């Protein structure tokens, strides 16, 4: 029998790929395994931006994996937009490095931006041109020359069919937002950066953006970095989250990594919540009760105790509608940032 093992390590431009393989040419167990570490689309190391007397971003480091929907959270003035603008080369970092697609962003700016599409805050385009003309213009700037049909398809994808030749000054905010997304996608980038994409949108618009993000991520394999104030929306789409505060990273990780199972918020809904609440207040569960934000009852318990809670409620004769664990990003956000609710939660 002959065993052979080999380890091949390749390091290129700060990205590491480790191939491990093993095989046997004789009968017997033969196995071969290849482990490829997930490629980082974005690696930020020690990023700092100093504006005169203000340190907007302070020694920030994070990474975004390919295929991530990366939620970027922080209070107003935390440094989110500054960081995103540094990713897009709109702002020069004072210190630190940014690697994108395995390339140093400063030295390979053109190659990096060719694979990046962005919607930066309110997407402003040329109001005196039509949607079609704007899209064609920005496609040319991205270095591509799509056909008329391709451009029309792009506009159709974002729901602007029939308005292609109308001047943008006649568009609503939501339509401009969709046009901005079309512009960001026209050159089929690997990475899409969305800075506050739901600003100014109505609930339908917000839902559209959410569905679009999910579509781009799941169906088209895009990597998406999205910053937003709408934590509930981020919660629904993000695979990984970064929370920054005063320019510094506070916490980064997947949902599973971020939320402590022993501190799970559980939402209980019964046919008579008032009566159920009274019973809970008189029980061993009273310490776990949380301030109410709606008609349902909130408790903070260990995730593993949920079945016990459920069983006790039934035992007490309470007609249970649902017992659901809730990962509240808002709670986490407020907990880890220096923010606090300046107004008491309205419970009644």
């Amino acid at each position, binding site marked *: 029998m002959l065993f052979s093992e080999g380890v091949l390590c390749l390091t290129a431009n700060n990205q590491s790929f480790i191939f491990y393989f093993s095989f046997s040419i004789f009968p017997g167990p033969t196995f071969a395994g290849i482990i490829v570490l997930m490629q980082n689309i974005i690696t930020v190391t020690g990023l700092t931006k100093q504006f005169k007397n203000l340190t907007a971003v302070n020694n920030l480091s994070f990474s975004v994996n390919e295929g991530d929907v990366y939620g970027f959270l922080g209070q107003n003035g935390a440094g989110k937009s500054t960081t995103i603008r540094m990713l897009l080369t709109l702002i020069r970092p004072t210190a630190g490095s940014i690697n994108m697609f395995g390339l140093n962003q400063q030295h390979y700016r053109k190659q990096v931006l060719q694979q990046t599409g962005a919607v930066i*805050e309110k997407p402003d385009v040329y109001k005196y041109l039509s949607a079609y003309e704007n899209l064609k*213009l*920005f496609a040319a*700037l991205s270095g591509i020359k799509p056909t008329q049909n391709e451009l029309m398809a792009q506009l159709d994808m974002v729901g602007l069919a029939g308005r292609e030749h109308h001047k943008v000054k006649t568009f609503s905010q939501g339509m401009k937002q969709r046009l901005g997304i079309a512009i960001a996608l026209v050159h089929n980038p690997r990475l899409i950066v969305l800075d506050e994409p739901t600003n100014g949108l109505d609930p339908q618009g917000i839902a559209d953006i959410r569905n679009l993000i999910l579509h781009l991520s799941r169906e088209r394999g895009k990597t998406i970095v999205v910053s937003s104030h709408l934590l509930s929306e981020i919660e629904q789409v993000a695979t990984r989250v970064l929370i920054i505060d005063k320019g510094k990273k506070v916490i980064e990780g997947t949902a599973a990594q971020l939320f402590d199972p022993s501190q799970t918020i559980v939402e209980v809904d019964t046919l008579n919540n008032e009566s159920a609440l009274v019973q809970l207040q008189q029980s061993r569960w009273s310490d776990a009760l949380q301030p109410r934000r709606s008609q349902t009852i909130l408790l903070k318990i260990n995730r593993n105790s949920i079945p016990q809670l459920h069983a006790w409620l039934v035992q007490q004769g309470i007609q249970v509608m649902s017992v659901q664990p809730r990962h509240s990003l808002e709670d986490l956000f407020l907990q880890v940032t220096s923010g606090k609710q300046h107004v008491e939660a309205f419970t009644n």
Partner: protein
Amino acid sequence: MWKLLQIELYKIFRRPRTYISFAAITALILVVQVGLKADGETYINFVLSGLKDSVDIDGKLLNGYFVCYVILQLLLIHVPLLIALIAADMISGEANMGTLRLMVAKPISREQFILAKFLASAVYTFVLLVWIAITGLLLSLWIFGTGDLFVAKISYAVQLQSNDVFWRYCGAFCFAYLAMLTVAALGFFLSLFAENSIGPIVATMSIVIFFTIISTMSIPIFQKIQPYLFTTHMVNWKEFFDEKVNANNEAILGSIQNPQRIINSALVLAAHIVGFVGLSMYLFKRKDVLS
């Protein structure tokens, strides 16, 4: 680069504001032409009043060349504002519209971006000058006909024979283009520092007016700095309309009295242009786009 320039030109000439300048120029020129057609003799008598004590001047003084000279004298003081309207809007206008961040986040080098923008405003300036040439010169020639050009300067007067005038206008327009391009470069440079066009437009015009006042006044302290002001050199398109005389005081056809002055002024203006544009490229490369 060529693609970028095409895009910038497309944006300029699709914008309604661009055509305000052409309309204003046309209106100004037509007003002058109508006025001189109606009462040009009175104006000529006024301009030549200093000479009429000594000589009689006979012939077709009010011709297309004379009218164009009057137009250029008036217009080249006011055209800088129209140039500034576009040039000073090139960067600040994009910032104001919110499109600057979209443009800069595209895979184009910042130097190429700035250069393309400036070249586009240079093309716009060129087209504007061509329009002035068509309406101010060709139209005037059509309305008033040709003839000798009589130019009254401060201390002397120059008579240019009709077959010796057209090439001078070609030279004067080329020089005027250089002068207007200097104003465009200044406006373009100031445009980097604002996110609203009004500021750079007003600043450009203020600088032009302020420097023009210093250039005009014959005060010793001002005379020391006048050679360094671009406004002092902008008016030297008039040098094309001065000729040399021989020992018998006969004008020499096809000559220019001070060709070196034209060359020096052209070099000063070119240096200003290169300076403003170079500085713009340097600063923009380092600029944080916060708009």
